[in-house]
């Protein structure tokens, strides 16, 4: 157990130092470096951030502030299916809040959370700039435009969530 953990940490550290090296160990690139770490691991693992702080020479307090300040970062792993609902103004006036409520009700998670089985993550995002399609739900980079409660159910059902769907929609 211990051995496999330290092996994993070793691999994480190696990945982080590779990313840090790509930016020439320049502290001013700490945010792009964290973005690359996030992309690599799908979130910001604690051991990666410790390795970052050590190899770049930036205080942990800064790393923690950045990780909790910028929305692009997550300190917890994201689910297998990542639902992003646009809450831009155009989507808002076209009823996106009702969709958000519905997703929260159906999956039992608030925006920013992941289900305990690691299947679903849900987040609301600021304008995606595809306002003609509003309200928009993005599932793992796939856009679903002009989404309604009934359409949301269909999307969730297609991914294996048990919800009642309406065939006629």
């Amino acid at each position, binding site marked *: 157990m211990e051995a496999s953990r330290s092996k994993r940490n070793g691999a994480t550290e190696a990945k982080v130092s590779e990313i840090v090296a790509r930016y020439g160990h320049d502290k001013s690139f700490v945010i792009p470096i964290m973005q690359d770490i996030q992309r690599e691991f799908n979130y910001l693992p*604690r051991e990666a951030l410790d390795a970052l702080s050590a190899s770049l020479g930036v*205080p*942990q*307090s*800064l*790393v*923690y*502030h950045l990780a*909790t*300040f910028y929305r692009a970062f997550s300190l917890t792993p994201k689910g297998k299916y990542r639902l992003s609902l646009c809450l831009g103004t155009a989507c808002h006036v076209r009823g996106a809040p009702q969709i958000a409520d519905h997703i929260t009700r159906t999956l039992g998670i608030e925006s920013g959370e992941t289900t305990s089985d690691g299947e679903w993550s849900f987040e609301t995002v600021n304008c995606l700039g595809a306002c003609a399609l509003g309200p928009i739900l993005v599932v793992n980079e796939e856009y679903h435009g002009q989404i309604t409660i009934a359409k949301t159910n269909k999307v969730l059902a297609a991914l294996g969530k048990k919800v009642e769907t309406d065939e006629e929609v």
Partner: protein
Amino acid sequence: MADMVTLTIDGRRVTANAGTTILEAARDANIDIPNLCSNEELHPYGSCRLCMVEITHKKRQRLVVSCIHEVAEGLEVKTATERVLNVRRLVMHLLLSRNSTHPRLREIAAGLGIEKSMFPVDYKGCILCGQCVRVCREVVGVSAIGFKSRGDTRAVATPFDEPPGDCIACGSCHYVCPVGVIPMEEKDGVRRIWKTDFPMAKCSVCGKYFAPVKQLEYFRKIANLPENHFDTCVDCRSTKK
């Protein structure tokens, strides 16, 4: 000698060194401007917004924070216009909703005619002036604590809300906090701060616990002092001479 400029504060002519802030110039002239986040040892920050004043410069009138805006020749400063007082009142109502009890806050509020916040109190204690975070970074140089999150969820925190690895338990944050919400205590050779216990060093002469071991190590390192420099407390070291 630095250039001197002449300005007026509430109608009084005041001279000050160029480059000083309005707040400093007012302080030197014994004119009180309330403030909470400013500290002479730290870089100006301008977060509490209490020290706002109204200035007229080259016929342009506007509100500025006096802890950052510098004096200038011919500047007219008014420290208590209705607009200024309204901002201050709002700020105090808002801060009292985070901390309704601290005497210093209550005193500033009372000066503005406020007894209690018009908003529901959700006691958080910390007013987010940031002095602790800044003293740790700018003066101590360890950045053991910082801010987390943003907006109304912003808070002062240790990294990952865990015992702070870089903290040397020097207590600067505790001393600098204007509302006394960073607890620190010492008992049986242990200093407790940020929910973490730090062992104290014992003086080899008098046997008193005199400073946290980590703080002494840090000083020794940055000042390049000999290994045994801190075996004794300051008192015993000076009497030894």
